[in-house]
């Protein structure tokens, strides 16, 4: 397999891996490092690629494990990631835009506070649109745990957004 062919194979998944690592680590350079490490590992095992039935789930699992390792093995520092989520609505006034950007940042912070499993499940479901079975494969956890973690994550987000006045009910 040439590097070109390899790039072609990973092209549809690399941004998904990045978003997932970013959600796990909440840190842009670290998330890029994780994706780079995953892709290098994948390249080193490229002969096995043809035998793997679900490359996306396989690499997603690698990304998850590497992100968790990074979180646990390091003196963890969180950099300011404001600006990652750009939220803008056409025809909004500058004040309204600032307010909306603050709301987006607040939602991002609430999700970042979730325990790692809940955060991973919520990301794969609500942002990537994975099915329960796809999440099960990607994270290597049973279906019932996928559902429980998703329920808890959404419940927590709703409670926090209600407490901060973004939601009324």
């Amino acid at each position, binding site marked *: 397999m040439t590097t070109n062919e390899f790039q072609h194979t990973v092209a549809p998944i690399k941004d998904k891996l990045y978003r997932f690592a970013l959600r796990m680590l909440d840190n842009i350079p670290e998330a890029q490092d994780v994706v780079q490490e995953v892709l290098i590992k994948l390249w080193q095992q490229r002969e096995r690629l043809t035998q793997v039935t679900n490359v996306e789930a396989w690499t997603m699992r690698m990304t998850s494990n590497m992100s968790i390792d990074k979180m646990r093995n390091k003196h963890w520092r969180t950099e300011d990631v404001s600006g990652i989520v750009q939220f803008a609505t056409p025809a909004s006034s500058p004040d309204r835009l600032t307010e909306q950007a603050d709301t*987006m940042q607040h*939602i991002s912070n609430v999700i970042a506070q979730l325990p790692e499993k809940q955060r991973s499940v919520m990301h794969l479901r609500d942002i990537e649109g994975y099915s329960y079975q796809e999440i099960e494969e990607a994270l290597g956890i049973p279906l019932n745990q996928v559902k429980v973690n998703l329920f808890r994550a959404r419940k927590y987000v709703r409670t926090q957004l209600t407490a901060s006045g973004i939601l009324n009910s």
Partner: protein
Amino acid sequence: MNTIAIKQLVDKYFEGETSLVEEQQLRAYFKEGAVAEELQEYQPLFQYFATAKREELPSDFDERIVIELQRPAKRRFMRRMVQMSSVAASVMLMVAAYFWYPTTELPSTVSNQINWEQYEITDEEEAYKETKAALKLLSRNLNRGAKKAAKSMDKITKKKRRIEN
């Protein structure tokens, strides 16, 4: 879809009971501008999901990856060169030491005068204590070395990160 149906879907969503199709309906509804006033509070959350899905790697990432993928071959060559140089340097040092190190022998009379046997430990307990003390000293020094190595690695990592950033 009418407002009541969407509200029911939102409640179902927070209960973790919506299907993928229903969640897509919610995303589509909140993506459009015409959101009913009583549902506008939910719009930021669904718009956050949509915005987060647009996050992408920087455009130069592919180039960096290609460089990284090609690097191992170069790195292996360099590592072999370093290993060979180290071996050559060690051999040269040993040869130099053999020719240049002054050969000093203790005068036979001095070694004859000392009765080394008197210092030998015969008591088992004492021997155990001495061995334990020696191993403790060794362990302490090894730990000291490991700590220094860890400190140096930490410094190198920090500098590397600073350069990369």
